[in-house]
């Protein structure tokens, strides 16, 4: 009985797969991750990408439903096949579009590797933004800019494991 169930399961899987992807059965997705001044990944085969969407983080694997997502300033994680540790980038916003053919385009104006961020610089930038925020007139452009600075630095700090208030 158990052996029957086991034999049946793979067939169900392959039928479902065929329903979702009509062209080919790909176990990995193709990632295009580009900045204006640098092309980080172009047609790279990866296992999974975790995208920091405005509404929340979500993961994209092969044969994912097509999605257009606006990204917030946060951490983008790329999981390569066979590698346990994800590659982390801090992105400053942008868009992630997953197409029906398992190709994901991620485009941002700016992104840096998490290892390249200096936590001391982040802390001092946050403090500077905080003081600018309190000194600026309520409701002015300067205050809004300072608020944005604070938010971005706070999320950069959170990505590095610092809690900035």
């Amino acid at each position: 009985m158990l052996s029957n169930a086991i034999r049946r399961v793979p067939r169900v899987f392959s039928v479902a797969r065929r329903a979702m992807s009509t062209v080919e059965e790909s176990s990995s997705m193709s990632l295009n991750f580009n900045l204006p001044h640098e092309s980080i990944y172009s047609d790279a085969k990866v296992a999974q990408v975790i995208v920091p969407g405005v509404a929340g983080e979500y993961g994209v694997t092969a044969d994912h439903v097509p999605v257009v997502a606006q990204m917030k300033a946060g951490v983008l994680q790329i999981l390569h096949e066979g590698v346990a540790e994800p590659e982390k980038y801090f992105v400053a916003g942008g868009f992630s579009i997953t197409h029906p053919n398992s190709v994901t385009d991620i485009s941002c104006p700016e992104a840096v590797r998490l290892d390249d961020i200096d936590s001391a610089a982040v802390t001092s930038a946050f403090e500077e933004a905080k003081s600018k925020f309190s000194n600026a007139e309520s409701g002015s452009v300067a205050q809004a800019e300072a608020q944005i600075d604070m938010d971005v630095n706070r999320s950069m700090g959170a990505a590095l494991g610092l809690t900035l208030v």
Partner: protein
Amino acid sequence: MALRLTAKRVCATLPKVMGQAVAARGMATEKQIFNQIQSTKNISKITSSMKMVSAAKLKGDEQRLSLADAFNKWTTPLTGEPVLLEGATYDELPQKTLIVPMTSDKGLCGGINSFITRGTRDIVAKVTADGKECDVVVVGDKGRGQMKRLLAGKIIRSATEVQSPGSFTLASALSSELIAAGAMNYDAVMIVYNSFVNAAVYEQKYKLIKPYVIEGEEESMLEYEFEPDTKSEVMVDLYEYLLTSQIFHSFMDAAASEQSSRMTAMENASKNAGELIDSLTLKYNRARQARITTELIEIISGAAALED
């Protein structure tokens, strides 16, 4: 003997008279030709150094263009490939179009700006003939100067002193300006620009960017889910980001074309200057030899007259 004397005097005076006549006309005296040669040599030095500077800048621009190509690839499934201006019918243009031609601020760059101006003029003529509307936002001082006469009524904005080659920040500033000018009220934004093929060739292309239809029969991007769920808001932001990305790519393409065109133009100018210097040098030598011959004849005829 009298005949010999008259003949000698005629021979003596003729060259002098001729020389004076030439000097009076003021065209080809030796000194003037010499000055002409010197100034042409100076010009050829300038043009050849400009050519070398352009060649060096072209390398950097080509690299930036290849990065911009990779960056802009995500827009291709959404807006399609750019279309060549040559042989285009412009039938697919919608009712109201905003045309954004990209030209340069500096001159001495060959024909890039003239091609864009001519192309824009043809587009406007075709659009008006079809009973559709269009407006123009010119980028670049040279284009503005050329189009001011032809399309004065159509130009609603112009952007000059754009630092070539431009950066993503500049592209986003320009796209927010376009949106402030009401880009979303048009049925399409059409970017007309020069596209770099190689160091000797560039082509004129245009990109058509249509704003997204939020709902109704022609709702765009039906097969995609949107995150966050407010599709209309995301579409507005996506449109602005798309426009910025396309403008950025066109900036890089136009900058590379400008440098290659300037390099070719300066090379031709240096070659022409070199040919001019050669022909002027021949003329100079002939003038110098004529002068020496005249002086010799004067001396000899003077001596002969004394002898007699």
